[in-house]
């Protein structure tokens, strides 16, 4: 029998002693829920309260803000120019300034906002744990490195360096620099392992720690990090890049203080945040009360097919806006596509900035007025132990759900801040690579094609072909000649718009493009992909527009295309569909699979084919201007048969001249046919809604509108239900399942054959 003392038995003094004892003897400074769960602004500090209460001159504040923007632009350019990681060259980076408390207050005109906003968490961690820790401390000239998303990051392929800025001995703000680095020593090269089963398979896991003292990198720690990754050159070079950019940013901030005074720096940072939050609240109040919903689904976890639900509901209740993601699939505890809550929220923030209110400043306060509801242990709010290197799959949905839900709410608004748009394609459709280059260097990273998503159709025009990544603007798909100079791959098809593969609508989505790659001059080089969307579409239509199609990947193995080029060049077509349908290359093994592929070595001349995707369509296809269909036909973006079938346009097949009368008639007939097919809504609901998902569907998440219970259907196991938030899902190893299947076949054969 034990006699535990309860809190009630303790005096205040005793409780304080115990609390201090626990603080002094803490085993591990893990991710702090108090920090990680709070996306709001910190309360004003005493200093901020004093400054803002006294009042600031708006014009002077504007000048300070301008100076800081100039400094951020300068340092952004530095990182972009100096950076070695492919991500840095293509715009996957940012520099930012934070308040002394760690709120992200400002980024430059360019850069990835989500990288900056997610850094609020590690900055706050450093502030809380290391400032007063005698073995660490935070001093002028220090900087801290970080990449672990459990402490605040998108995934651990992104690395940040954060530096405190001191003025007259006081910590007055923070500056940071972040780059998508790629290689990080994970179980697969390139930094985004799809086969990671635990977070310990994901390579470097840097909680925020000091790596710079007296403005210099500590070589012992640098060596440790270089020793932990496949590309030690990249690791060192980009740490230097980040360090020198934040040193420059710190200098610029100090010059602002010298010119305008410390109060104007700290006052401006805080005031920018508060002004932004005020403006967001004003915009929320503009929207009539109501609810808008969208259900989205992810069709794979990069190891097996699953249909994981990610719903979103936005409620406007007066001055409150609530974003509800309850009902989302439970976390996949041994799969790498989970997301930390903080990461998810900062992506939702970015979505608002990119697709709903692109005129707002790029700071953390854009989202601080939004209330968020999520289930624990879900795909969008995973536990600390869940791997998340490929969090991009749910995260990309965080960029596509808000434009849909907010678009529906904003449609009635007299003033919109940008166009209402259907979904941009939301998959990282790019080849991740790794191995030995033709120059004898070890590398691992990904191709810039991730920046070429087709955008959705809009309220007044078609989407644009392959325009940007779903998470940023002015990013770059690069030049293939320069990439091939550094890497041993050859892009047989670099960029060729994928005919017919688009979200149709009154305004169609922008298209994606085919990519066909092979390897040359390396015996150890391979590819993987980290996308899904091969069975369920990834970009939805809006107001009657079609979703984008699904995209598989294809491979032709056991060939050397360079031999084919020499001996039978006519066997090669620069087109994925023809290659796979006609299979003219002799001796090849042809494979079609879902778009997520774990890393595999590519022998010289073997072919890998994927497709960058299209945006969703906007509006009814029958409302599409026939002349726009004719233009698509002329540009060979759509096949004549498909144009006729989808858009009901009648044209001369030789010159695509539209027969307007016949088109009108065909469309009228289709409208009548629709009416004929239609049934009353109640009847539709009665026939359409099922009590549970089809038996053979590997479904995960809530079913219907009841989000309190989640359906769990792991492959190879019996379906079950769990209370929302209660636990994650463990998957068996696909190889074990395959072995079990084969064993079963053997057993059957043994029985039937009698051996």
């Amino acid at each position, binding site marked *: 029998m034990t006699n535990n003392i309860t809190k009630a038995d303790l005096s205040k003094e005793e409780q304080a002693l115990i609390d201090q004892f626990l603080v002094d003897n803490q085993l591990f400074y893990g991710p702090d829920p108090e920090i990680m769960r709070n996306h709001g602004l910190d309360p004003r500090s005493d200093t901020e309260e004093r400054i803002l209460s006294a009042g600031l001159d708006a014009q002077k504040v504007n000048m300070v803000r301008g100076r800081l923007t100039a400094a951020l632009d300068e340092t952004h350019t530095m990182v972009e120019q100096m950076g070695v990681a492919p991500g840095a060259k293509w715009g996957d980076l940012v520099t930012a300034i934070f308040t002394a408390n760690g709120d992200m207050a400002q980024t430059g005109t360019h850069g990835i906002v989500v990288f900056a906003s997610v850094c609020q968490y590690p900055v706050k961690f450093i502030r809380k744990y290391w400032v007063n820790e005698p073995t660490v401390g935070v001093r002028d000239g220090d900087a801290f490195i970080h990449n672990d998303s459990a402490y605040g990051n998108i995934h651990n392929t992104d690395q940040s360096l954060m530096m405190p800025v001191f003025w007259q001995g006081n910590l007055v703000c923070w500056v940071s620099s972040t780059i998508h680095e790629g290689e990080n020593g994970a179980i697969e090269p390139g930094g985004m392992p799809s086969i990671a089963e635990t977070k310990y398979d994901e390579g470097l896991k840097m909680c925020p720690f000091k790596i710079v003292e007296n403005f210099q990198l500590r070589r012992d720690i640098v060596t440790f990090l270089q020793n932990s990754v496949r590309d030690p050159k*990249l690791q060192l*070079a980009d740490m230097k890049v980040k360090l020198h950019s934040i040193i420059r940013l710190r200098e610029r901030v100090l010059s602002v203080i010298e010119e305008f005074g410390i109060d104007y720096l700290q006052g401006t940072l805080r005031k920018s945040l508060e002004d932004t939050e005020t403006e967001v609240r004003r915009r929320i109040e503009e929207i009539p009360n109501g609810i808008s919903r969208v259900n989205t689904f992810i069709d794979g976890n990069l190891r097996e097919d699953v249909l994981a639900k990610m719903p979103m509901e936005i409620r406007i209740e007066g001055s409150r806006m609530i974003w509800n993601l309850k009902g989302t699939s439970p976390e996949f505890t041994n799969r790498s596509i989970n997301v930390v809550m903080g990461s998810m929220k900062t992506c939702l923030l970015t979505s608002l900035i990119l697709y709903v209110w692109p005129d707002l400043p790029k700071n953390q306060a854009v989202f601080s007025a939004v209330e968020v509801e999520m289930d624990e242990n879900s795909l969008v709010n995973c536990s600390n132990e869940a791997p998340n290197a490929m969090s991009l799959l749910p995260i990309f949905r965080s960029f596509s759900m808000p434009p849909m839900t907010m678009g529906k709410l904003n449609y009635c608004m007299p003033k919109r801040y940008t166009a209402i748009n259907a979904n941009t394609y939301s998959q990282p459709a790019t080849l991740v690579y790794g191995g030995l280059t033709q120059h004898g260097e070890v590398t691992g990273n990904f191709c810039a094609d991730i920046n070429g998503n087709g955008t959705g159709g809009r309220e007044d025009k078609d989407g644009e072909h392959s325009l940007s990544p779903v998470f940023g603007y002015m990013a770059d798909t690069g030049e293939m000649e320069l990439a091939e100079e550094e890497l041993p791959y050859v892009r047989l098809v670099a960029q060729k718009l994928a005919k017919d593969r688009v979200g149709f609508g009154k305004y169609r989505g922008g298209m994606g493009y085919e990519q066909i790659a092979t390897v040359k001059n390396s015996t150890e080089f391979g590819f993987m992909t980290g996308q899904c969307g091969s069975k369920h579409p990834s970009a939805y239509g809006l107001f009657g527009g079609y979703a984008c199609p699904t995209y598989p990947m294809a491979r032709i193995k056991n060939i050397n295309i360079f031999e084919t080029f020499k001996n039978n060049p006519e066997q090669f077509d620069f087109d994925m569909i023809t290659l796979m349908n006609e299979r003219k290359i002799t001796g090849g093994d042809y494979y079609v699979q879902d778009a997520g592929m774990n890393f595999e070595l590519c022998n010289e001349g073997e072919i890998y084919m994927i497709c960058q995707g299209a945006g969703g369509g906007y509006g009814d296809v029958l409302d599409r201007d026939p002349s726009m269909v004719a233009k698509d036909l002329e540009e060979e973006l759509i096949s004549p048969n498909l144009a006729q079938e989808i858009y009901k346009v009648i044209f001369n097949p030789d010159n695509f001249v539209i027969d307007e009368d016949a088109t009108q008639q065909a469309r009228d007939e289709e409208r009548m046919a629709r009416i004929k097919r239609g049934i009353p809504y109640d009847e539709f609901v009665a026939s359409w809604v099922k009590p549970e998902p089809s038996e053979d569907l590997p479904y995960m998440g809530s079913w219907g509108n009841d989000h309190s219970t989640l359906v769990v259907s792991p492959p190879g196991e019996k379906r079950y239900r769990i209370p929302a938030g209660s636990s994650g899902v463990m998957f068996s190893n696909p190889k074990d399942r395959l072995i079990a299947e084969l064993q079963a076949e053997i057993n059957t054969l043994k029985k039937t054959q009698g051996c």
Partner: protein
Amino acid sequence: MRRISVDIGGTFTDCFVAWDGHYIGAKALTTHHNLAQGFNDALDIAVQGIGIEKRSILAGIDSVRYATTLGTNALIERKGPRIGLLVTEGFNSTVPLSRGRGYGEGLPFEKQRDLPNAVRPDPLVPIQMIRGVRERLSYNGEVLLPLDENDLREKLRQLVDQGAETIVVMFTNSVVNAAHELRVRDVFLEEYPSYLLGAIPLLLSHQVAGRKGEYSRAISTIIDSFLHQVMYHGLGTLALNLRANGYEKPMLISHNSGGMAQLNSTDALQTVHSGPVAGIAAAEHLAKNGDLGNIVATDMGGTSFDIGIVVEGGEKHYDFNPVIDRWLVSIPMVHLVTLGAGGGSIASFDQLYNTIKIGPESAGSDPGPACYDRGGMLPTVTDADLLLGYLDPENYANGRIKLNAARSRFAIEETLCDDLDLDVLDICKHIKQTADTNMGNGISTELGSRGYDTSEFTLLAYGGNGPLHCCGIANSLGVNRVLAPPFSPMFSALGAGNVNQMHIHEQSTYSVLFDTTANTIMSDYHRLNGAIEDLEKRGREDLLRQGMNSNDIQFRLEFDMRYGNQRVETAVSSETTRFESVHNILNLIQRFHTRYGERFGEGSQAPESGVRINTIRVSSYVELDKVDFKHIKPVTEKRSVEPVSQRLCHFVGYDKPVMTRVYDDSATKAGSFINGPAVVTTKDTTYLVEPNWSYHASHKGAVWFFKRKGAA
């Protein structure tokens, strides 16, 4: 020296004449229907100052040099032929997709970040005019897939059938092996000899741009092709006009590389932005000739604010992938940053921060600021300048435009007063200060990102609004001295008359100077020297063809270098033009190390990642006579000048209006000294001497502004 140089801009044609020590500048309106007329008008005004009739001047002149925005305008107006584009099969959508980011090139960031409204510019080559040809070269020029000539002939036929008026060929990696592109030319001539169809121009990408980067090289070739006809006709008309007026020598064209060449040795692409670049070239000469040290050259006009950097004894600043109109191209162009800030920039209310925002929208010159009285209803920087008392409504632009202050006041009252709860004049001060600060921040970003300290620079202010805003910009920058150069309103024309005959040739290369995997230093001197020799040969041939003397030809060798696989390419000039030892290589690496450290901070260098040369560049030039600027430094004489009048002006930081003396052209005589506040209005421009600044005129019309010591 007897020379005429002309800068044909969108609104004005500026002319600068140097005639035996006389320097005369003149302005006339650009006549878009016939550029020669505007040129004649400007020249007529200029020759009046010399007192010799125009025909005699033209007969006796050494050279006539043009900088023109003709190409820029043709691009904006999409005046060009129907182009057919042949690319390597598999790269069919490279041009239409424009690296994704192409939608935002040349736009202000407010539009770049508005993804839901993003729209690519109308294409120069529509998708249906692009064909892929079966062929492929590797990164080092190895033939992977031989050129399929049957396929080529078929694709050519398709493009011709579809009405291609010119053909552009861009094959992947053609800059390292041009055989396939050259073969296209032969096949094209076989299939379509000129006697059959007339001349359909055919341009090969490797002959337009020597760098890797298939998209930017394709666009460069497309623009070259697109502009060729309009430039040919436009400049040809000018040449005929000159001939008709007695000028017998070849006409010279300013290039955006900072050099110039005869018309027959000029690619259309090289003429775009040649006007603003000529201004920077003039600034460079001014700095060198006048011993002025580092200069940041700024040109503030009606719609834009151009920034260029000239560093004493330093590297030339080039953009290798500049944006022309909305297109990213591959051409070595003198570095020039253009901000959307000018007299026509519109002021609006920033609701979020309860303050004023300037731009990016501009009223341009049509309808122009509200005070132009041409229908503009929105307040601009010029409107604020007028109400603050800086501009003379009767003598603006030499009296060509009468300003209506009531319109300015109305525009500000209607759009800003209620929201800001401020009176008109306070708002005008905010507009002026914000505009100046924005331009100052632009300069600061530009200098900072290149590793320079603004306090080590003299601000050079020219363009229509430069001398008016330069003190405000300098205040914002923390710069204490400003030079409004001689002939500041036609400074680019002056610059066009001051450049060397020059050609730049480049070659992409993958030359590892320091291989950190093998721990070796490059020793293949033969290959490197061979490439340099080839580039020199091409430059020499260009200059010899234009009648230059072989002995006068000089070369400048530069390398674009990088650490490892980083993006930045730091231009490093080489002391030696041939490499023969480890010592030469290590010396080059050290020069790179020093230059990089200056730019990004000492310690930022990363030689342990390896050191590479990506591009070899040779500038071949002949040094020509220049306008003499030796005596433009501040003079010791300080002569007081009598004001012609006085009026109340309003200044930032002053609650009450200040009685301000006003001066005329007589204040531009060397030695004239004026303490601010003051306004100097000449027939070509307005100089604003803000409080705490002084004005000191030097020789040849140069004006210095100095911040008084101790002034905040």
